[in-house]
């Protein structure tokens, strides 16, 4: 009896762990940010009001609640800067995701079709960049892309161009930076789905009269869709909120929501507006997240 009770409790506890994790590391911070986004800026420490304290008592708590408002969200609607920043972020993230897919798919396909003994090595090579700091790798791109950088020197030497290309401080540099940084997140899920795909399906398609390209579009690609969706979301979601890459590679006129958020926090010290920006960003991201969930569920249902 006793041991049964213990194991029942243990079972519950095991289920609780992920929820506890979500609660502590997602819901609580989310609640704090949400609350700040509903507060007002103030010259104080912390720089917003009201501040909830444990000594306020019930009446103080209610009074504090009364002071919360949606003013900051209305402000976001008011100023076109924010809207433009969101749109531009989505576009930049979308274009980057597309190119990451374009480059990542052949890579993943090649890896999945490589001899089995080669695959761990190839996988290692994809993960290898993670061993260097992300920041340093982005800095390295400055050295490559700047007017007197490696790329321009090389192109001048080859003779393809006679004046250096202005890549630094343009959106092109941001695309290059994002595609480069997030490519492994595209390649890995794609590789995982392509690798476990049964090659005899392609043989069967060819046997039934499909040339290899048709077989790819009718069999391989549809079957790799769960990997495509996972890879795209893994690139798209962090790319939207990306700050370091646009800050280092993009020009001052680059509009991305991550940069806007940074400016609100650190330049304007406007924590409430910054929090509101973050909450809206989260809402924008929830939509693709739900797609992802749906796709995952469908993939599970298909049994592979």
């Amino acid at each position, binding site marked *: 009896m006793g041991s049964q009770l213990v194991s029942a409790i243990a079972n519950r506890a095991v289920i609780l762990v992920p929820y506890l994790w979500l609660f502590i590391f997602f819901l609580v911070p989310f609640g704090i940010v949400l609350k700040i986004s509903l507060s007002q800026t103030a010259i104080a420490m912390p720089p917003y009001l009201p501040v909830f304290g444990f000594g306020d008592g019930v009446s103080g708590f209610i009074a504090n609640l009364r002071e919360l408002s949606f003013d900051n969200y209305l402000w976001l609607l008011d100023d076109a800067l924010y809207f433009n920043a969101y749109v531009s972020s989505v576009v930049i993230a979308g274009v980057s995701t597309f190119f990451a897919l374009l480059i990542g798919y052949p890579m993943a396909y090649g890896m999945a079709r490589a001899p089995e003994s080669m695959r761990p090595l190839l996988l290692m090579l994809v993960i290898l960049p993670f061993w260097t700091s992300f920041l340093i790798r982005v800095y390295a791109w400055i050295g490559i892309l700047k007017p007197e950088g490696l790329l321009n020197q090389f192109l001048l030497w080859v003779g393809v161009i006679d004046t250096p290309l202005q890549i630094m401080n343009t959106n092109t540099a941001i695309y290059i930076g994002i595609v480069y940084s997030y490519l492994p997140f595209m390649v890995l899920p794609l590789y995982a789905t392509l690798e476990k795909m049964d090659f005899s399906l392609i*043989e069967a398609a060819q046997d039934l*009269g499909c040339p290899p390209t048709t077989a790819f579009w009718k069999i391989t690609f549809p079957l790799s869709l769960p990997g495509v969706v996972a890879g795209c979301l893994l690139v798209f979601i962090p790319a939207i909120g990306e700050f370091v890459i646009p800050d280092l590679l993009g020009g001052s006129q680059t509009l991305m929501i991550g940069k806007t958020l940074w400016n609100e926090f650190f330049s304007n010290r406007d924590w409430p507006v910054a929090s509101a920006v973050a909450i809206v960003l989260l809402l924008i991201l929830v939509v693709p997240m739900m797609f992802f969930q749906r796709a995952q569920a469908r993939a599970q249902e298909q049994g592979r």
Partner: protein
Amino acid sequence: MKSLGSIRRSFAPWNDPEAKPYISFERVTKRFGDFTAVNDLSLDIYEREFFALLGASGCGKSTLLRMLAGFEEPTSGRILLEGQDLRGIPPYRRPVNMMFQSYALFPHMTVEANIAFGLKQDGMSKADIASRVAEMLKLVKLEQFAKRKPHQLSGGQRQRVALARSVAKRPKVLLLDEPLGALDKKLREETQFELMDLQQELGLTFVVVTHDQEEAMTMADRIAIMDKGQVMQVATPAEVYEAPSSRFVADFVGNVNMLEGTIAERSDNAATITGASGARIRVENAGEAIEGSTVAFAIRPEKIKVSSKPPAEGATNVMEGEIWDLAYLGDMTVYHVKLSDGQVVKASALNSARTMDDPLSWHDRAWISFAPDAGVVLTR
């Protein structure tokens, strides 16, 4: 020469020196690394033939089919289809369809879409595709499952979808790799006959791999017995069973008693074989075996008569022994008779009457006898 068994139909192009083979394997070898899966194999298959490949697991049957379908190229040798060398022709340009041993059903398509896949590829009209798919679903009895995905089917149902998908295109040559292995006996027998009808009706050439001898016997015009990448014998089912060419084939197909001995004397075709313990076997046709050579006399259990009394005077090939074991199988009884030299011979008797006057039982004295033409002499 007496004919062997009943001939199902008067279709025997392999006996016609004028007939051109439809598919020819010419000294085909296939190596994977240093492993030889198919070893210097030559084989002719004729148009409209129902050809079966029979052999132990790993003997190269699937490899042979895969070379014909175009998924593997022979390491050496040629494969001809209608006289045309197939080397270099990709699978999607060969008039050959294959049913895969692993089924290889497209998991993201319904049963219907799987079957229609090859037809769409051929640019068949929508209406024609629909009617062909319906016909195929009926053939494999999966009408109610048309809208299901492969993962919603049982193993046997998947196998039938794979069969339907490969048959749907009605290719000139259909390669079936274990098409019916996962089906229960009744469904398997029904499908066997339907496949035979289909093949006859459409005039297709079928090459079928099977582990089931009975299935090969039922369906095939000819059977190739394979061992370690080589063909041991190609012949009609009756010939393979009644006139195996080697110890391997005799042993592989059906039950057999192998009595080892030496040819003591030979006159014309007839010969006498002396066993190790001195038992003498008279045979009517000793083939190429020369006097003094070591041979095996192979005789099927049902060709041996068992009796509780010595057979009448003048009977040939009589041996005395003891009932060592017996198994009652319903339609027949199998006796294991231990001869005086210690060898155990299997004999089976049809239970044509419900009760026997004089049933044999364990450790009874028994006599076995067989006619001089009841078995074959094997030198290989």
